[in-house]
């Protein structure tokens, strides 16, 4: 029951949090910024609309948003938000989940290519490229977590005796992991400095350019999927950052979402104070977390003794 509630709450709150980012950015820009509920309004607006489809497209174009959204929801279904046992969990679920995310990306890319637009193709190519690099980091993190907890399940990562906490025995490595995961989050969710969703030039975009031709409810689904995915990553980071496990479920939840909000705020801060990297610098940026994680993993080998 708790699990279902937690999941539903996450689904509901996911659109709210990105508004925090916009607020922070507005603050840095000296503006007031949109209201916090802006994304709900956007949803409502998009759901009401019809769509225009390109004559080039096929069913793949329509399937893209659905698959993308579904894979993001899957992540939340398996993730122990606020330490509450997820709806589903088994040994090995992380593998299938990250691969499902790959499936989502697969269809997003295909949907973009389906439009026959050179710009969307460009975005698709970059998406495919950067995600292959990010994927290596993610699996590096999984290796480390398996080394520490002996499990391959989100639920087990954050439960039991050897739970991953920054105050635990592997705290030092976890700091590296947190930095790495943060960068992966920025990459996977197309944030600055990898991608700039707010830019005006299609040639320099990655994710936004891929969804140029989507409209109406399809676009809404894509946006939803993106928010869920961002929530998933911040929740993941939050679970690692937050060293406290409070007895009270409600308080614990509150603390958890506080940390999540904090992470969103940092994203906003980063976006405000850094500029997007040149495209050819991005791979280096994405490789950094991989190196960090690999180093952290080697540390666990206890060769240094």
């Amino acid at each position, binding site marked *: 029951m708790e699990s279902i509630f937690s999941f539903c709450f996450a689904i509901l709150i996911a659109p709210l949090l990105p508004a925090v980012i916009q607020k922070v950015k507005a603050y840095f820009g000296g503006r007031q910024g949109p209201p916090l509920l802006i994304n709900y309004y956007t949803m409502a607006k998009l*759901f009401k*609309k*019809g769509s*225009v*489809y*390109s*004559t*080039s*497209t096929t069913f*793949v*174009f329509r399937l893209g*948003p*659905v698959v993308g959204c*579904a894979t993001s929801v*899957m992540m939340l279904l398996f993730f122990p938000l606020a330490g509450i046992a997820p709806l*589903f969990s*088994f040994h*090995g679920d992380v*593998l*299938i989940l990250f*691969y*499902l995310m*790959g*499936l989502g990306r*697969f269809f997003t*890319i*295909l949907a973009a*290519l*389906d*439009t*026959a*637009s*050179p*710009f969307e*193709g*460009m975005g*698709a*190519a970059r998406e*495919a*490229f950067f*995600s*292959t*690099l990010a*994927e*290596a980091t*993610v*699996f*590096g993190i*999984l*290796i480390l977590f*398996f*080394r520490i907890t002996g499990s391959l399940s989100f639920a087990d990562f954050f439960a039991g005796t050897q739970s991953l906490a920054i105050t635990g025995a592997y705290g030092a490595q976890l700091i590296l992991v947190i930095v790495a995961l943060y960068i992966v989050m920025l990459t996977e969710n197309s944030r600055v400095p990898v991608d700039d969703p707010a830019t005006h030039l*299609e040639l320099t975009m990655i994710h936004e350019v891929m969804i*140029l031709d989507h409209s*109406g*409810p*399809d676009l809404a689904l894509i946006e939803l999927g993106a928010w869920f995915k961002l929530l998933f990553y911040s929740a993941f980071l939050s679970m690692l950052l937050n060293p406290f496990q409070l007895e009270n479920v409600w308080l614990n939840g509150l603390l958890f979402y506080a940390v999540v909000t904090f992470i969103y705020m940092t994203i906003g801060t980063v976006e405000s104070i850094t500029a997007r990297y040149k495209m050819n610098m991005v*791979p280096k940026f994405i490789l950094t977390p991989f190196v960090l994680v690999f180093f952290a*993993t080697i540390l666990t*080998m206890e060769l240094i003794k």
Partner: protein
Amino acid sequence: MDTMFVSLAVILTGGALALLFARQFTLMKVATIATTSAGCLLGLVYSLSNLLGNTGTIEQSWHWLHIFTLAFKVDSIALFFLVPIFTVAPLALVYSYHYMNDKLKATRTAVNYFFFAVLVASMAMVVTASNIITFLLAWEIMSLSSFFLVVFDYQVKENRQAGYLYFIFAQGGAMILFAAFAILYRYTGSFDFDTFATIPESIKLLVFILAFLGFGSKAGIFPLHIWLPKAHPAAPSHISAIMSGVMIKMGIYGIFRIYLLLQASTPLIGEIVLMTGMVTGVLGVVYALAKQDIKQLLAYSSVENIGIILIGLGIGMIGVSEQNQTMAFFGFAGAFLHVFNHSIFKSLLFMGAGAVLHKAKSKNIDQLGGLMKRMPVTGRTFLAGSIAISGLPPFSGFIGEFLIYYGAFHGISNHRVPFILAILAIVSLAVIGGLAAACFTKVVGLAFLGEPRTDNAAQATEAGSSMTMIMILLATACLVIGVVPEPFIRLAFAGIKDIPHISGYDTQSFLLIVRHIAQTGAIFIGLLLLISLFRKMLYIKKKIDSGPTWGCGFTQPTVRMQYTGTSYAAEMIDFYRPFVPVKKIYTGITRIFPGKTTWNTTVEDVAEINFQQRLIQPLLKILGKLRWIQHGKIQLYIAYIVLAMIILLLFIAVP
């Protein structure tokens, strides 16, 4: 065992029928396809029933040429490898009914069917052979018959070259195998496979490396893969399907079999296999990404999948030498399952590529596009195959990779070298997965989606019914294996049950995980349907327009402006540059009013270049210089004789 030989006899009869009825084209096709397929199905039933029915090993032998024995032995490994042989072969044959429809080439088609049957029979013999002679005999017949299949379209120069290259690699590999087996024979004095474990430990590594090279040249390990991306595009598509889907697995079978027979204790073997697997996998997929020819791309993708299978085997072997049963079990099981899965989806993809080639008259991605609308079945099945080969759930490819991941993750508990190797294996699997997805989004996205780039592509129509039927069947199989994986995982488990080191491993807990995976797949599909339904609801009574793709303000878009395969892959290729050299030809802009200029890039295979530049060219140069020997002057010819005589006489005089 008798059943298998009966099935082989039926298969060969099918082949003979092709030659017999060569003049009546349709009758020939029907007769040979029906007979050969029937033989294959009989064999399939035999292997499946024995594999799942827990019958022990069965042996049979005949005397041959006074001093030899033709010995066959069927254990679970052999039976497992029989399954893809007998599965893919009939499907490829039925597919070929509409694919091979050029009546002008009737004789050649008949010969093709004949060698197809021979190839199938010889592959079945390879996996069941249980002594040196039998094995090599079957191996050589396999090489020869597949060569003829490759050079089917010999008018094309590239195909001849491909056939030639394949021929060299086949024979060169076979010679190395001869050497490996001869060393074994030296120490055992017996042709029998079962005696191999008795040779001195120090020799085992040498033998294994030789065998690894020999078998690897067939399997396509890096850098011995260079024949593969040439031969597969050259062959007709159903041949590519069986070669890529099944025949190269014979190399894997050989590597695994020799590993089992040697029972070497050195961990080096597993490490070599694993590292080769990683290099093969990553480079294979990078090259696949770089290629614009669909069939060449698929061939490189086969190299990649061989890499994945070898990673699995390597994990298993390291597991054995580390006495980590979980690692060993899942490494082997994953490799086995991937062998089977790959044979399914790679056949599907090659058949799809064949249909495209047939109807759109090109296999170059940059000349295709928009085929999903024109060839709906081919497009959809190809999409399914692409998802499967990228290892994405809920399709079949994921399951095999999951097992390997599972084994590799359990290798993390080791120390030192095995630990690092396990990490590297996982990371390279992840990288391979990502790149494979990139690679196949490229194929599907550019060849099947978007707008046609040429008139031929625009005029393409759906392929013949025998072809689409088979592709639908295979695509369904990809999905079914992904959604209901348990029977297939059990099949893989049954396949490895005769491996001594891991017998008795308890699989119950894992089967639970498998059920969970199936469940997750089901949840995902449910979710997908739910969201689709939601989307449908949102669109009720909504206005749906259609118009051109938004050109970002550009008002006169043409189909030539679409992103091409080359540009799609360019950045990713660049990342791996030292291993993936790109040759650029750019004529440049010279005058004030620039004339026509060209820009051309080709990605070259680093193995091929080095093979050419470091081995072949120097060799030819040396050989060319030595040709002076035969200069045509009789006086010097006599001098040779005198010289030889003097040198030999010194042999007596000196000591």
